[in-house]
């Protein structure tokens, strides 16, 4: 997703990848690395979409072209995904975005929470949150905010928002907005085990009694 500056394309393409999986996997079996399969399929689909847009649209799509399609094949490795996620996490807290939009973007695109879930975490109505996300996505694409790992110098001003988001992911994992289960252990597993702040480890936020804790 960091190869595209386009969240809308990335979202739609991931959706397509899931559709493709639902069609292909029952017949051919689940691939050895389902995550990598979905990632590659989504990326290829995103490229198709962008090419399609280039043909139709007048507006130049803001595609980062420094990554050759060849690199996508190499990125099949599941091992790249955590880095990708972290890069996305830090790009979403770019200082040229409003502070309240940064955390919301991360929760939407890194943690995969729904707009309704994020609205609840921020105590705002869902349409307000939807508008905030739309505006932030437009800014990212139209102002040319890059999605790449920040340099060491960028980290101090971004790390606070990242930590806030990690805490909110924990909150949603600890007490889910919707769904049959009260907790969402898969969400908690997103939390990086090595994130430290003032000597505090995010793992320590998870109560010991939680059986599925990270």
């Amino acid at each position, binding site marked *: 997703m960091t190869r595209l500056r386009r969240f809308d394309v990335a979202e739609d393409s991931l959706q397509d990848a899931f559709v493709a999986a639902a069609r292909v996997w029952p017949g051919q079996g689940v691939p050895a690395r389902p995550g990598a399969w979905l990632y590659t399929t989504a990326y290829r689909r995103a490229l198709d979409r962008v090419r399609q847009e280039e043909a139709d649209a*007048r*507006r*130049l799509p803001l595609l980062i072209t420094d990554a050759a399609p060849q690199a996508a094949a190499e990125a099949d490795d599941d091992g790249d995904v955590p880095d990708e996620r972290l890069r996305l996490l830090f790009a979403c807290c*770019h*200082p*040229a*975005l*409003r502070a309240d*939009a940064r955390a919301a973007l991360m929760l939407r695109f890194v943690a995969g929470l729904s707009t309704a879930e994020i609205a609840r975490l921020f105590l705002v109505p869902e349409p307000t949150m939807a508008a905030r996300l739309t*505006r932030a996505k*437009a*800014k990212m694409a*139209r*102002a*040319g*905010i*890059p999605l790449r790992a920040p340099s060491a110098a960028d980290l101090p001003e971004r790390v606070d928002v990242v930590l806030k988001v990690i805490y909110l992911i924990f909150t949603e994992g600890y007490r889910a907005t919707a769904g049959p289960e009260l907790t969402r252990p898969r969400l908690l597993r997103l939390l990086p085990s090595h994130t430290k702040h003032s000597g505090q480890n995010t793992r320590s936020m998870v109560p010991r009694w939680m059986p599925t804790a990270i």
Partner: protein
Amino acid sequence: MRYMLLIYGNEQAWESRTEQEQQENHERHGKFIAMLQERGIGRGGDALEPASTATTVRNSGEVGITDGPYAETAEQIGGYYVLEAADLDEAIAIAKQIPEPIVEVRAIAEFPDMAN
């Protein structure tokens, strides 16, 4: 003398125009640009991405960058630079080197099928 002609308008109205209205507007600007070329007096011009996608860079006082256009009324536009940058980060880095206190960074809108 050289003059800079700044265009103001309601962005919401601009953004909600239909495809056809946009096309018509492009054609009107095309005619205007042709007139400038014919008279040999054009020195460049562009459409900007909406003010909501602007980033304001402060080089003195509370140094830093903020989302959005420069909205206060005490200061006025005093000059401009147009430059090519890979992305917003590079544009901001250069804006920080401008020896002026406040710089608003706006992306220039691209219209590939319109030859300027």
